[in-house]
């Protein structure tokens, strides 16, 4: 069963096995009250017991890439090419981001499972900076088998000189996943305002565009990350 085909609501009567990158997710009915969730990643397996009555459904939804061993608040988005921004430039960049899997019961997120390789990066100095989930767009282009969503990033330069951008730090909160009319997965647009090489504001804001259905989100609202340690 393909991971893309199983997004949605499911009733678990017996056993459901979903192959994911480097492993699998298994949902196994153990009693009328409980379901056993078995996650296998890179040969390491762990299980959790979920209280799910037989008449209830479980929701599998794509999530912004927030799953992994570490709890992080931001994405370290490494651009495939350095972007040169002249003063007053306004550039739109379209790319694709890998997604993770969220397991929901009654609209409550109970488990997140990474569907792509997870790596982390430190932005800034070790004491003041932030550890972020790394998304390297140079590598992502070669990895077509992961579940991905389209993403638009709008860069606006209010700097006095030319600034080169090779990475942006994106707050995970505020990022949402949508499904458009063609059932394509899309991520919330990210706005990047560049004031200088040591002041770049990256904003994620949960808004529901007309005609779209919101699929899942990390935490709704408007969040701004100020990049102070270079671009």
């Amino acid at each position, binding site marked *: 069963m393909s991971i893309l085909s199983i997004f949605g609501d499911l009733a678990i009567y017996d056993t459901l096995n979903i192959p994911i990158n480097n492993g699998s997710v298994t949902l196994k009915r153990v009693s009328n009250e409980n379901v056993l969730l078995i996650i296998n990643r890179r040969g390491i397996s762990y299980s959790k017991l979920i209280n799910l009555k037989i008449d209830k459904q479980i929701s599998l939804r794509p999530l912004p890439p927030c799953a992994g061993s570490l709890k992080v608040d931001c994405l370290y988005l490494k651009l495939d090419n350095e972007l040169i921004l002249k003063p007053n430039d306004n550039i739109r960049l379209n790319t694709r981001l890998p997604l993770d899997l969220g397991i929901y019961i009654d609209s409550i997120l109970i488990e997140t499972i990474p569907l792509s390789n997870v790596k*982390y*990066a430190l932005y800034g100095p070790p004491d003041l900076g932030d*550890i972020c989930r790394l998304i390297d767009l140079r590598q992502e282009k070669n990895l077509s088998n992961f579940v991905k969503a389209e993403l638009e990033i709008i860069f606006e330069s209010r700097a006095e000189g030319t600034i080169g951008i090779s990475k942006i730090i994106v707050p995970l909160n505020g990022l949402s996943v949508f499904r458009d009319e063609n059932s394509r997965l899309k991520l919330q647009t990210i706005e990047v305002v560049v004031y200088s090489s040591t002041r770049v504001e990256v904003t994620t804001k949960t808004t529901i565009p007309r005609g779209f259905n919101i699929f899942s989100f990390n935490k709704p609202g408007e969040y701004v990350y100020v990049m102070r340690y270079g671009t």
Partner: protein
Amino acid sequence: MVLNYSLILQHIQANIGIFIKVVQAVAAIVIAYYLGNLVARRLGKAIVDVKPEVLHNFERLIKIIFTTIGVAVALTIIGIDVSSLILAAGFAGIVIGLAAQQVLSHLFSGLSLIAEKRIRVGDIIMIGENTGIVESVGLMSTRIRLFSGEVLTVPNTDLMSSRIYNYSEPKARRIEIPITISYESNLDKAISLIKELLEQDEYILSEPPPIVFVEKLGESGVDLKILFWVPSMNYWEVRRRIVKEIKETLEKAGIEIPYPRRVIWIKQLSNNIESSRNMETTS
């Protein structure tokens, strides 16, 4: 007996004013004490975004202030002039200050530690040769639960004058691993295998990128140095695991990690001996 009762009653009637004052004074202290406790508890619940050590000491300070006010009110009720007491306390303060220099030094060190945020409850610190988790930061001393299980209580003055390594403050820490491979092994292959291994590990940060380089040409082989960053909380876990994994990876690829060795040129020596023997026979 009747006489005794009447005597007691007479005594009470004569000193009823004093009894009322004593009751009022005790009530003032008790009320102040309970009020202090109540305010401290309420503030403790209301203030969420404060470190536990600051909150704990702040609560104690509030209790002390309220109880002091209660005692002052009680003394005023009894008829003791508090202003003269304050004056006397001023002199007493100087005397006590001189006598209790060390206690006050601990106290101010404690306040300074809390204000500076050098260490916080839950931090992993190393002081001298002791490493452990900070359990409490008091006004006088700090308790550290050592990894071996014992509790180390350090006076705050000692802590202030010591070099403290706080392992919890940085979000990421660098791991350095020295490794030697034999001169006969393929150096580029070894470096690339190690880099590949580091890239695959989820906890090893991609930024700053891991570095593997030749440090020097050693006595036994080529000395490599491996540098990479990990989240602070995973430091020991990764360090323990990765050294083993590097060894296994290199061994699988047939890259030798040599024992310390020394090459002795016996050939040269035997040639010299033979030539000297020849010289002897000729002569």
